[in-house]
């Protein structure tokens, strides 16, 4: 089992009242799954994804990731954990504008303290695999949206994560670009066994996954 959420609650105080963002979420994810999280705006999809990705905290409940109990870990260990095992893909790509494609890909490796020669090799591999060798010296602003997301996925993959979390990865893309990215996810999942959890609005994209989780007002339905 890759991760398990038990009775997760998350809330904010608003005008003296608790507003629940997540309510009693229970979830088990096995390695190699491809899960789609669906639900209307404000139902807590992104919050759930952030909690799974350990970018966000929760107020109640327990969370085990690879048999580590995340809720008891200090921030430093948590960040060590997610930088080792989790890759993130965002709707608006979040590439660093000041860095070239190559440098963007290299960055996660820097934070993992990987040696220079090895970094070079890994980045070259990734550029090759995604067919973007020719674009390695371009800055994100010089790429199309689809290409930027391609770089985004490549960056998420370069650290060889067990889990990829994708927050509406195709939200800013046209249908053809979306199709390509989803095919890529499917391939990764099937051929390399990478676990993927994506948040999506689109029924069509959700179909790529092996399991769909529906959220409404912070609850699983």
């Amino acid at each position, binding site marked *: 089992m890759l991760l398990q959420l038990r009775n997760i609650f998350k809330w904010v105080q608003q005008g003296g009242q608790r507003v629940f963002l997540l309510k009693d979420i229970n979830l088990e994810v096995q390695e190699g799954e491809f899960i789609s999280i669906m639900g209307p705006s404000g139902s807590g999809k992104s919050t759930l994804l952030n909690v799974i990705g350990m970018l966000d905290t929760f107020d109640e409940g327990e969370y085990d990731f690879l048999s580590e109990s995340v809720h008891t870990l200090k921030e430093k260990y948590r*960040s060590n954990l997610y*930088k*080792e095992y989790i890759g*993130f893909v965002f709707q608006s790509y979040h*590439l660093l504008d*000041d860095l070239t494609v190559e*440098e963007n890909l290299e*960055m*996660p490796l820097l934070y993992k303290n990987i040696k220079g020669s090895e970094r070079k090799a890994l980045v070259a591999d990734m550029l090759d695999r995604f067919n973007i060798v020719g674009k390695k010296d371009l800055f994100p602003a010089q790429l199309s949206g689809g290409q930027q997301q391609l770089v985004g996925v490549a960056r998420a993959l370069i650290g060889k994560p067990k889990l990829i979390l994708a927050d509406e990865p195709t939200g800013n893309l046209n249908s053809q670009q979306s199709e390509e990215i989803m095919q890529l996810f499917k391939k990764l999942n099937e051929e390399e066994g990478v676990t993927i959890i994506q948040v999506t609005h689109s029924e069509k994209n959700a179909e790529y996954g092996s399991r769909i989780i529906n959220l409404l007002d912070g609850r699983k339905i």
Partner: protein
Amino acid sequence: MIKNYLKIAWRNLLKDKVNISLNITGLSVACAVAILLGMSAMFQLSYDGFHERGESIYKMVRTEQTPKGPKAGTVHAAPLAPTLEAEMTGVKHISRMVQDGTLALFGEKEVNMDIVWVDQDFFSMFSFPVLHGNEKEPLADLNDVVFTEEGAQKLFGSTDVVGKTFNLMVNGEEKPFTVSAIAKDIVPQSNLDFQIAARFESHREYNEAKEQWDRQYHEVFVELKQGVLASSFEQSSRSFVDLYYGEGIERLKRDGATADENGRFINLELVPLKDVHFASFKNGTVEVSRSRPYLIFGVALLILFIACINYINMSIAKTAKRLKEIGMRKTLGAQKKQLFFQFWSESLFVFIISISIGVVLSLVFLNDFKSMFNTQISSSMFWSPMFLAGLLLSILAITVVVGGYPALLMSRLGTIQSLKGKLESSGNNQVRNVLMVFQFSIAIIMIVGTLVLWSQIDYMRNKDLGFDKEQVVSFPLNGKRNSHDMVDLLRDELSGNAEIVSVSGSDSNLGLGKDGSRSSSGIGFEYKGRIVMTNFLIVDHEYVQTLGLNMVAGRNFESAADSLGVVINESMAKELGEQDPLTSQLEIEDGIFYPVLGVVKDYNFKDLDRAIAPMTFFMSRQQDLTYGFVKVAPTNMANSFVALENAWKKLEPNADFLGSFLNENIDRTFRQEKTTAKMISSGSLLAIVLSCMGLFAMSLLIVQQRTKEIGVRKVIGASVGSITYILTKDFLKLVLLAFIIASPLSWYILKEWLQNYTYRIDLSVWFFAGAGAIAVVIAMLTIGTRTIRAARANPVKSLRTE
């Protein structure tokens, strides 16, 4: 990793050229100015620090409790030093000293030189290294003198002169002396400055004064034996004082003086050599104050501080633009520590650039700075280990705090929030506001300071001093001729010239002449059973009319025959306490009574930081005049000056003519004030410019951040004026708040400073209002340029940024 940081830092710099160039300009200018000011403060503080035995050398001061309060004097009687050495334990070396100007003659040459008359121990105490000649005992013989290299060049045109004989004018006669040694030139930060050192016993007054305990005319420096504390020496000198000053103590008691807290009337006190430059005796006690160099240090720090505030504010404001980067780096596993070091190293990068530019700037402008603020700093001071260490330390402190604080803030941001691009800004804004208020308070205080300082200087310059300073030329009587003869000869020589009104002389200058020397003498005598103290001036009979002084009672000296009477000033008349001062007879010398011929209206014969004291004019051909005074007609003053100079050259062909108008002399006495005023005003100028640079950058960023708001407001129908108002008012509030904080503070500081002057301006409201208005107007202009442009922009464009 570091390469990656630097890459990002470099690209960030290039991306934001306006902001970065403002930052680097501000920081490097502030750094350069701080280095220069720091150097000049260090220079001041290093005065007399070069004497190897300085730790155990002291200047001797005698304090007396007079009926009018304590009085401190640095001049002593000739027998004091030898008696102390003989009777007190603990004295290692002791030397008397008179600083003087003298005429030196060698062959055809006549040169005015600075001379010190000192005892044999002088060169064993002070570190004025001897280069050639008798190193051990350069003043062993009574006719021995030591020249500095500069002095030897001046008189002999060479420094290879050990053993040569030349003459000095002593009491109007040429006396032969022998060069026994050549000493190294005196460093600028020395209080003792001379070209020749001669034996104290050769001084013109010595023969008459050597046995007299009541004739005080020289300073005394003492070096204590190792382990002897100044305080214990002072204590053990008490019985010595009782023995030799007993008569004086009795007189003080009789006249109603009150003893000090130790029950003493007269004390000998020791002022450490390194304090001498900073000691003043104005209020009758020894006060050591290093406030001037510390003030300069303070200004340097404040300027640096203002530039640093700019940097902090701009870095914090720019965080908004880098939120995405921070969030993304965190999701990729960056830890706080790593982010902190990334942002901090970016700051470090900027600082290293700025500081390097600053150092170069300071070295480039060193000479301009020196002449502008007449300090003697040199680039070698910059490389002194002390200064470099201080510089490095402050750079380190600045980079840690100024670079560290924004970096800390940035590294602490939450991952999700920064990814969403949201910033809880209220906290940061407060820090920013506080810093900006601080910055403007400093600027306003400095502006008020500038206004007040210049007004005070202006006031002192234009104040009616009670004598004619515009039309009178004074010049040192530094020639070979007898001074009284010289004044008479000049008078005859110039009598045909209708534009020369009168000629006279006295033994003290007014203000500070070109020769740069000042002196004053005082005398005390018994009058009706008590001691009366007065300043004492040897004059020539035309002194009163030459200086345009007004008689208020009696008559002036009419001719040389009136030398058996005196003329006094109003303060002296008051001191005598007679109904009719003209009836007084003053027993200035034992058994000889001098009638008061007349009373002259009070005039400021000393600087304006002192009240007018009693003064007595005395006419005597036995005592030398040292300065000539010539009053010229108000027309063609330049011609008259030339006529005077020509007459001088004719009578004294070998001596320099160093004449100058009295108003120039008076101006010279404010030189320190002027330098301080110049420093403060340049400082305040820089402070306001730097503050406005910060304000400008902030308004730039704020306008960018509020583009959407401006667009929405315009679409709804707001006018350009109202939008400009909204954007400007927040900043103006800060400036006004700064004004409210700065006003009482500057009022307090300046009130204290003005206490130093007996004659001073009132601190009117207008100084503060003026400074406030200057700050507000400059701030408005700075922000206005940006805000009006933003307000006038097409709303469709500004909304499109979403």
